[in-house]
């Protein structure tokens, strides 16, 4: 198929994705921590065709992250313990944001804190910073679910009260749409989802990684320098899909589904389960064109079944 045929094709199905204050040209995003700052994959996959990119989690201060090894492959999965390596808020604002502003795609900034104050600072500063650069930040994704740091992060995401508190505080400090990113390492995901909805989140994204580990039987030590890491990739898809399905029934705000999506079929499953948009993470590492393959497959699926808009799929499996 030629490029122009492809684009005519996409035009037949409406892909516009309205997420309670965040409007994207299509429902296919890339997941935080897997797509750098939008430049790394540019030679392989045009960001102009993506619904949005989500940048690596930013913390107030720069972080070196964890020592290596940070990665361990598992059956159909990947363990990572990057430990939130990032340039820190100031450097991000000065040196990364201008470049992100120049990209022809919606930019979502993922933020991570170790205290309530951290989240307040991040939200307030990025709100201002976005205004400076032509409102280039389209939403803040609040990571209350990072498994790879000692304190904070995931702890906020495993207790409904704390989760609500963090989101409410971010809400006070920004006018940007808020995406609350949930950890799957909880007994009841719907409780946390309801809490962040009450806290004022516009959107919920799920799931972050499952806490896992791997042991090197020759050294008899954990493979990851950090001992534990976050499990992502196709292995976790059934868990992610179940949680999206459950949360869809529990809240009234839109969901961004992720966790093991590597094909368009996976993405359709997530939309049928209730995701209004999907994020591609680990699959980028295997196939840099995964987001576009997902997008094109989604369009074909809609066309073949006579859907006029991709949003018609959302929640159909209920």
């Amino acid at each position, binding site marked *: 198929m030629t490029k122009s045929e492809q684009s005519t094709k996409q035009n037949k199905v409406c892909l516009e994705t309205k997420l309670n204050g965040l409007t994207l040209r299509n429902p296919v995003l890339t997941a935080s921590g897997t797509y*750098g700052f939008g430049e*790394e994959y540019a030679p392989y996959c045009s960001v102009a065709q993506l619904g949005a990119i989500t940048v690596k989690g930013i913390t107030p201060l720069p972080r070196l992250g964890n020592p*290596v*090894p940070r*990665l361990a*492959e598992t059956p159909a*999965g990947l363990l990572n313990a990057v430990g939130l390596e990032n340039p820190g808020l100031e450097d991000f604002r000065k040196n990364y944001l201008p470049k992100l502003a120049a990209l022809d795609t919606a930019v979502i900034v993922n933020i991570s804190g170790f205290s309530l104050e951290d989240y307040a600072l991040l939200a307030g500063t990025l709100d201002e910073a976005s205004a400076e650069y032509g409102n280039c930040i389209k939403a803040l994704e609040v990571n209350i679910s990072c498994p790879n740091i000692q304190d904070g992060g995931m702890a906020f995401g495993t207790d409904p009260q704390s989760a609500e508190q963090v989101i409410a505080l971010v809400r006070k400090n920004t006018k940007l749409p808020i995406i609350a990113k949930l950890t799957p390492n909880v007994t009841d995901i719907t409780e946390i989802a309801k809490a962040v909805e009450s806290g004022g989140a516009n959107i919920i994204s799920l799931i972050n990684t499952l806490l896992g580990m791997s042991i090197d039987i020759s050294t008899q030590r954990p493979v990851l320098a950090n001992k534990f890491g976050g499990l992502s990739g196709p292995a976790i898809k059934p868990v992610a899909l179940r949680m999206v399905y459950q949360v869809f029934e529990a809240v009234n705000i839109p969901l961004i589904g992720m966790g093991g999506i590597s094909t368009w079929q996976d993405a359709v499953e997530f939309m049928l389960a209730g995701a209004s948009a999907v994020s591609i993470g680990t699959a980028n590492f*295997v*196939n840099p064109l995964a987001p576009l393959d997902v997008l094109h497959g989604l369009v074909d699926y809609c066309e073949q079944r006579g859907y006029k808009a991709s949003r018609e799929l959302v929640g159909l499996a209920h």
Partner: protein
Amino acid sequence: MYLKVRVIENRFVGHPSQKIYRLVLSGQLALKAKPGQFIHLRVAESHDPLLRRPLSIAGIDREQETITIYYRLMGKGTEALSQIRENDYISVIGPLGTSFTLAQKGEILLIAGGIGIFPLFSLLEAIDRTKVQVKLFWGGEHKLFLESAGLNYLQKLGIDYELATMDGSLGHKGLVTDLLQGYLEKRALNSNPALQSNRGLAPLSAAACGPKGMLQAVVNLCKQHEIPVEVSLEERMACGVGACLGCVCTVREEGGILRRKRVCKEGPIFAGEEVVWDDEI
């Protein structure tokens, strides 16, 4: 580049026990590739193994438009790779990463530990040996390994080399760094301050690839002797393009500030002096 390339050859070389394979790939990659760079290869279509595998470019033939890789069977990724047959197509991202600086004159020392020899093959090919004098030090487990991993190729090239084996079955019994140390010490003794001008004529540089411990020792020796050295680092990789921050090493910047660099993007070739080794943090 992100391509499907044709496998021209994928077979076993040397002694079976050493499990070393040569993989020859066809395609435009060859036109861009530089010594020291690597490719990121999808070894199977299934989700297990999931990740691509990074492998150094060991040979570049721009006329035939082929690149050559040597790999050793380690686990299920290389195992899956070894099952791919000639004329199959495999998905490749690359060439990726930084390359070795090509010395234009003087003398270059190459130091390889084990399969660290592979990326040095492409450097050897690229160096203009009419202008640059090459001296190679290579250490391995034993004779069988060295023979399987390309000793006869070195012989064919006709370069000057010294070998070390752990069991003494070929060359010096011991570490490759013993050889380097011996060489540098002898050279220091011989260097007559009166002849110091000669030194300027033959600037000495070095390039090394091998296990971390060996690289650290090489860098220390080179520091002592004030020789600029480039090292090729390895680290577990997911994306291979700088997006996941999985493959970092630590470097010391001016002012002593520690920073991470991505082995896949700012590396795999690093200036030896900037690298901060694990036990130094």
